[in-house]
């Protein structure tokens, strides 16, 4: 732990020296970096250059995770993102966990190499443990094994879970998790299915 802190400090120092000498302040550097990026990417397939245009949350979250946001800024991000969540008109938040499992396994979607006609996946397993059966899971996010078993399926839990999938930053500013509904990655039905994967008592997540 101690060595890690130390290494980080040395690292920060190097970065500071590098920054200091180049004669640009932080904001100028960010501006220049964006200009350079805009000149360094080609549109390809469905990935157009407008993907480099950051929204407010993306701008504020472009920082090392060790650098904490001021409380009011974090609260502002969460408030704005919470307001973006659209719950299904039919009021039903849980779909089919079997479909949800498929969506959780699939990592395709939105890459310049992907066919935009094929529905995107959520790639949950890339970052989370879900069912016990899938041993190939990532650890960037917390384990979601027994997610529903531990929380139940009350209306409040359903709303929170669907909302978290829809827009993770409504609850945690600068979360690493994609905002699947907000950014149009998943359809409403797909988000219902993923919610069911997490909450349905029959889902492998809750066995």
């Amino acid at each position, binding site marked *: 732990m101690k060595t*890690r802190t130390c290494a980080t400090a*040395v*690292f920060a120092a190097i970065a500071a020296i590098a920054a200091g000498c180049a004669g640009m302040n932080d904001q100028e550097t960010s501006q220049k*970096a964006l200009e350079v990026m805009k000149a*360094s990417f080609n549109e390809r397939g469905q990935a157009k250059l407008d993907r480099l245009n950051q929204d407010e949350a993306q701008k504020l979250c472009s920082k090392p995770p060790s650098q904490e946001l001021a409380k009011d800024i974090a609260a502002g991000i969460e408030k704005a993102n919470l307001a973006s969540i659209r719950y299904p008109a039919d009021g039903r938040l849980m779909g089919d966990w079997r479909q949800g499992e498929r969506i959780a*396994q699939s990592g395709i979607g*939105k*890459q310049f190499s992907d066919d935009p006609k094929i529905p995107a996946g959520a790639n949950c397993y890339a970052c989370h443990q879900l069912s016990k059966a899938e041993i190939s899971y990532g650890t960037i996010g917390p384990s979601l094994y027994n997610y529903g078993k531990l929380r139940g399926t009350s209306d409040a839990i359903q709303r929170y879970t669907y909302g978290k999938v829809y827009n993770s930053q409504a609850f945690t500013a600068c979360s690493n998790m*994609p905002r699947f509904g907000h950014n149009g990655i998943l359809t409403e039905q797909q988000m219902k299915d993923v919610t069911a994967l997490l909450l349905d008592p029959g889902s492998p997540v809750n066995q």
Partner: protein
Amino acid sequence: MIRRKMAATVLAAGAALGVSAQSSPEAEIAKYREALAAGNPAELWEARGEALWKQKRGPKNASLEACDLGKGAGAVKGSYAELPRYFADANRVMDLETRLVHCMTTLQGFRVADATKRVFGAGTNRSDFESLAAWITSESKGVTMNVALDHAKEREAYQLGEKMFYFRGGPHDFACATCHSESGKRIRLQDLPNLTEKAGAQLAYTTWPAYRVSQGELRTFQWRLNDCFRQQRFPELKFASEASIALTTFLARNANGAAFDAPAIKR
């Protein structure tokens, strides 16, 4: 239906691992990597690259042997461990591939468009850059990484690269940092190097280029960046672009002090 079959296979795998395996999945994967290291097809690219370096080509019918990779014309040994660097003759910072484009145009007389027609190989359609990079980097094996930030433009490249590393964008809100700024994390079963700490940056940077068994191709650091951005859902990073050089400068500098150890072999 097919997916169910796959899931069942994984399920069976999980059960077997839980009950009867004498060693952990991590230990087995370490064993797999060790077995791969016993013979690295990158050598096939290295051999082609050395021949290409010495072959007279292009409108000027010249070899690349007079190319200055930063340690003087024709000096290849150890050169990659000091790249990217500022080159006075071009008045800019260049990484290896950018410098090779420079030499192909100035020494051999190729037009940039012709020189960069195939930057990433596919099967028998090979990329000269991948072959050349395999050989040139192999000549730095064991050399300590030593990327200088002496010139103002080198410092600027580092600083811009750092900004780009943390830049979140695209429909998934991903930055390089999303996957590479915490230690001990993995995606699926693959360990993710923490590129914001010395050990992680060193481990990652010193093992590119690499023969990717998933593709059966040798890939360079330009490819690594290109494919990371693809998976970040960004548009396509241009080969030898300023952003690619800036990011490479940031990551290569962070690896300073470690022994260069590529071409490697990776899944």
